[in-house]
């Protein structure tokens, strides 16, 4: 009886952990989709250059229309 219960809870924990891991990993997939969708992979060179400039570009009220 106790053994049966133990197995039952172990299985529950495993199922819970598997689902949790998928959920967390799914978050990263969504993050990847967001990054691609907002164009962060469109230009992979210029941002690496821009970060090296000393004075920041003139601040602008730049928002995505």
């Amino acid at each position, binding site marked *: 009886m106790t053994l049966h219960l133990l197995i039952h809870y172990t299985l529950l924990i495993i199922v819970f952990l598997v689902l949790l891991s*998928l959920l967390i990993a799914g978050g990263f997939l969504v993050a990847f989709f967001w990054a691609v969708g907002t164009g962060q992979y*469109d230009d992979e*060179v*210029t941002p690496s250059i821009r970060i090296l400039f000393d004075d920041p570009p003139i601040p602008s009220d730049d928002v995505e229309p």
Partner: protein
Amino acid sequence: MVAEAITQLCAHCGDRCPSASYRSEAHVFCCSGCQTVYGIITASGLTDFYTLDGAAGTSQRRVREGDYAWLEVEALATTYASYRDGNRWRVLLELPAIHCISCVWLLERLPRLLPGVRSCTVDITRRVATIDFDPRQIDLRQVAEGLARIGYPPVLRSQPTDQDPGKQRGLLYRIGVAGFFFGNIMLLSFPEYLGLGGDASATFIGQRIGYLLLLLSLPVLLYAARDFFSGAYRGLRAGRLTIDFPIVLGIVALFSRSVYEIGSGSGAGYLDSLTGLVFFLLIGRWFQTYTFARLRFDRDYHDYFPIGAYRVGAGGELRAVAVSALRPGDRILVKPGQLIPADGILEADAGGGIDYSFVTGEAETRPAGKGAEVFAGGRATGGALPITVSVPAAESYLLQLWRGGAESEPEMVAPSDRVVRYFTLGIVLVASLTLAYWYPSDPALAYRAATAVLIIACPCALALAAPFAYGTLQRLFGRVGCYLRSAAVIDRLGQVDAFAFDKTGTLVEQDGEAALTLCETEPPGELAVLLAMAGQSGHPKSRAIVSQLTGLGIAPAGIGPVSEVPGAGLRLSYGGSAYGIGSAVFCGLSAPGDRTYATVDGREIFSLGPARNRLRAGVAGLLERLRHRWPVYLISGDAPPRQPFWKDHLRPDRIHFRMTPFGKQDFITKLQASGKRVLMVGDGLNDAGALRTAHVGMAVSEQDSNFSPACDGIIAAGQLERLPAVLRAARRIRWVLAVSYGFALFYNVIGLSFAVTGTLSPVVAAILMPLSSVTVVALASGGSWVLYRREIDHLPE
């Protein structure tokens, strides 16, 4: 000595200055363009531009002057805006001059130079800038002209730049999905790999995990692998077995076998192999879609043409309209120096004749009288030309050269149809034999073994070898200034067995400006008059005179209209003296004939030498090496030169002068009809037709930001002598492929020996399949690298 050499470098672009005519303070410039740009940049306190990167400025000597007046036309300007409202416009402009860190720095500080610009964001690889500006303070024309003033003239295509930069995004999404589910399925299969489960698949948890895995593999099967299914289907409909077909066969076998095993509880299935396969194949696709984004290989005439024209209304008033809106019967006015936008009939004599050098490469202008037919692409050299349009711009005669040059999707490299056919037949045969062998004794084992054959033989390695071999070589070619439009061009490059070269601009380069020789130190008053005279003419010689005299610090005098004798020279009576600019005969001098003279009352004031040409470095060696093995032709639009230099390098019967653009195209067509596969190397728009017709068309470019017509590849002018090495590498890449295929086959034989005996376990499949893919990718890329080092890299710079 050293100090003198340094001061002779242009302070803006760093080129050697032909003369010290352009100075300001301690700085010397090579041309007035560079001097102007330097002035603007330093005046705005942006001198860091010159310290950030060594070669920041672009030489202004060869810059095409753009005409941005059309942007005042609201309807034309709005086509370039990706977003606009009352106080904000956003435009994406192509700036081919972008080439270095300093360019990014300077352009992103555009708001300091142009009030009204809110922000400017540069993409250095694609050479575009996204500019936000306030339409109440500045308009698009002013933005474009401002950019041109600092040395970044925007290129306005009549079909505005593709606003969506993310053509690759779909593939990235699919790679993400495949990678995500591949990783998670592998993770959940771990107990299976370690043998922890025993017959775990039969237990409660094992079965549930199996269903979960099945669920997880669905997005990969239905979304990520979509391209393979559609590719196989398209191939079958066209009656071809493409590489996608055996891939789909493998995917279907993997999935159905997994469904059966998991559903019946008899095994764990092969879903890790399935998702891994799709993941690797998609990476292979991504690897070969690499393009030299900053180069354009698909230019057509739209990119060189004005986007607008002045239409003459019923009341004689001029209205700027889009060129695409011109209809036959419309009357237009083409101003001096502008390109004629559409074929038509002249309504008045063209004073200076029409200069077709832009299209045909011929230096001489053609006289044209009232009623003559003129063709789009010509340039008015005299006064403004009234023209009645006879044919819509898109159907112009000379523009037929570019017709059909529209680019479809870049071709994918794939094993040849023959390889795929034998391969597919082979695995189907092995699978059938396995089935036939086992069926009488053990039908269940027979099915298991037959599907295992289809699974393990999946041509992942076969499909990956070509993309990685060609893709790597394509990137390496880029290091030596040879940029190919797609990896598939390498395949065709390896088949080439005849060569055709253009002369001017390809094998021969212009060596500096024509030299101006002042006869005596004259009072500048006469020079000012002569400068003003030359300024009224659009002839190339006149333009050279204007640029040289302006460089000497002379300002034009105020004079009346000059009479131009087409093809001969200019005359003017001014202040009681007779001024003339033209050939020796025209000016009444008994002097050598190839110079242009300026005279006052028969006295020679100055003369202008012909523009000097010289053979590019390494060209003699290149021709020498090529002609020993292949027929090499020279096809040029020019008249035969006096020095029979070419006879030393080429067979006389293979040298063709006075070829029209259409003649060049026909020449290539005939050569190819005789079974040759021609590599055409050219540079100008007059080679456009020939470049497109040839098996491989390569354009020669002095700066890689230069314009070049539609072509398969662009080679930097200084790297022309590497062409034989590039060709050798392109031919020998087949050996790399053969070795890679050999290894793929070796792994397949091992896998098949498991499969036909019915002992292929999912674990063996999960190890063997990625292993073979990784080995083949490493071999293909490594082989290309070795090839590059052996054939190309060791050559001296």
